[in-house]
């Protein structure tokens, strides 16, 4: 019985480790190849440690072709703007739907549920035409505006706010707070778990999104990280995998680092938003 058990444990551990190795393989090769010289890469050996360390060379190349700081900065600006606007718009709306009596609440619920069905890919064409007419393509506005409303955020906060006891809201009203005061000082502080979860969801989604930036941005100045990497690949054209891997390393690093630092929050956030969606 005990022998059997420990055999099972060894098997389980072996399977998990093997799988982990396969899942990590792209990262391992990325780091390894980013330090190899062109000639060594083409010798197609499986050795992971570069014979000659060419990290400096490859990273210099990666940084010189495309302005990495601009890309990362654009990523941060766009994600931050999207997140802030989404929160500012969604929280009051969700509060009104959850805790206030008004006739349109049911209709709003229907609209939110319908909105959940419609991804950016479906609305992209008319938005593109409209942005073109308004001459706002190639701008932060174009990158941010379509995501200013997140029905998912409304949906998530709505569920969260419904769980806040009515008595708490009533007590705040008796204490003389206005409704906006209640949102800012009672509801938001109690909704931090939902807000962090949504923050992680929103940032991961928009940091990684290629489709919409590809549609509205043709100017390197407004390129987000995924788009910038596409430009870099196009400029590189050939098979300079050393520099390419160095570039992917730089661009992947921020979010992966954030994930590794706060991995528990990340997993919780994605689980929470995932299950609610």
């Amino acid at each position, binding site marked *: 019985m005990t022998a059997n058990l420990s055999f099972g444990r060894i098997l*389980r*551990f072996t*399977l*998990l480790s093997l*799988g982990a190795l396969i*899942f990590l393989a*792209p*990262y391992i*090769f990325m780091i390894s*190849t980013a330090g190899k010289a062109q000639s060594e890469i083409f010798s*197609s050996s*499986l050795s992971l440690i570069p014979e000659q360390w060419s990290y400096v060379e490859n990273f210099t190349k990666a940084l010189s072709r495309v302005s990495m700081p601009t890309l990362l900065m654009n990523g941060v600006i766009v994600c931050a703007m999207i997140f802030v606007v989404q929160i500012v*718009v969604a929280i009051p*709306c969700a509060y*009104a*739907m959850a805790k*206030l*009596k*008004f*006739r*349109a609440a049911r209709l709003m619920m229907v*609209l939110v549920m*319908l*909105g959940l*069905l419609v991804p950016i*890919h*479906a*609305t*992209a*064409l*008319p*938005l593109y035409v409209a942005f*073109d007419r308004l001459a706002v393509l190639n701008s932060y506005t174009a990158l941010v*505006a379509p995501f*200013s*409303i997140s*029905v998912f955020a409304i949906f998530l906060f709505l569920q969260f706010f419904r769980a806040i006891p009515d008595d708490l809201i009533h007590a705040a009203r008796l204490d003389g707070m206005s409704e906006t005061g209640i949102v800012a000082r009672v509801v938001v502080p109690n909704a931090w778990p939902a807000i962090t979860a949504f923050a992680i969801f929103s940032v*991961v989604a928009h*940091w990684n999104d*290629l*489709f919409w930036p590809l549609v509205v941005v043709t100017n390197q100045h407004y390129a987000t*990280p*995924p788009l910038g*990497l*596409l430009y870099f*690949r196009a400029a590189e054209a050939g*098979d300079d*995998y050393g520099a390419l*891997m160095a*570039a*992917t390393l730089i661009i*992947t690093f921020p*979010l*992966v680092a954030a994930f590794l630092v706060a*991995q528990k929050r*990340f997993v919780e956030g994605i*689980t929470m938003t*995932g*299950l609610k*969606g």
Partner: protein
Amino acid sequence: MASIVSEMPIAAADRREARIAWLLAAPAIVLLFLFILLPTFAVVLLGFTDFELGYGGFRFVGLENYAELIGDRTFRRSLWNTAVYTAIVTPISIVLALAIALLIEAETRAKAFFRTVYFLPVASLLVAMATVWQFLFHPSIGPINTFLAGLGIPGPNWLGASGTVLYGLSIIGIWQSVGFNMVLFLAGLTAIPRELYAAAEVDGAKSRLDRFRLVTWPMLAPTTLFVTTISIINSVKVFETVKTLTEGGPNKASEVLLFTIYQEGFVYLRVGYASAMTVVFLAILVVLMFLQYRVLDRKVHYA
């Protein structure tokens, strides 16, 4: 008279509350109309026109676009490829995710470590990691084929041959989505009451398999259904890897729905025609969600 007097303040208070509610919800309502409802309505409308960006006018052409879609070989190819990709990625990523979740759940020591490792692809920039995969898949210098050559197997030209390109993309898709499905399964597993397993043991479910069938699998049903829907939808939305690595090629062997829409609408600027495609795409999503609600209602709600 008296009754009117006593009712007035209540009605007034209700009106006040409704007014505040409207004010709080107004920005969301406006933006919802502007960026979701209106464009959705517009895309359906545009699907009946021959609108092309850059040309001034347009006219309504009825169902002409849809008629053209039926005969469009690229579009049919694209639908078929999307279906194949979904049929590969969804089941494999779900089964793998469930297996990994079960193994991790049973693991005592390195739980957090393994969870982090398998989740890592979800937090990584897909366009960047696709580039890494492109290197891994490289026919001559890629580690995968070097490894296969070491075993004496001639490796295929993964992303370069029309016979294998969808499989290559599927592998990336699976690698990328397993972690997400896994954490959902882990959450589902933790939510199963421990006493059910105890009851199953006492009731005579001796083997792990028995307990899995009696408790785990049925208790995970809502999670599994949800993971299935979300996986299918995400597979139908495959775009990043195709755009980055293959541009639909070779020979349209990796044309997928969103890529075709992107090409037609934003490269060739045939907005009307691309809108008709978008409507088809949207219809697929609606049907999937509808199916999920139906099954959810019927089968997996225990309350």
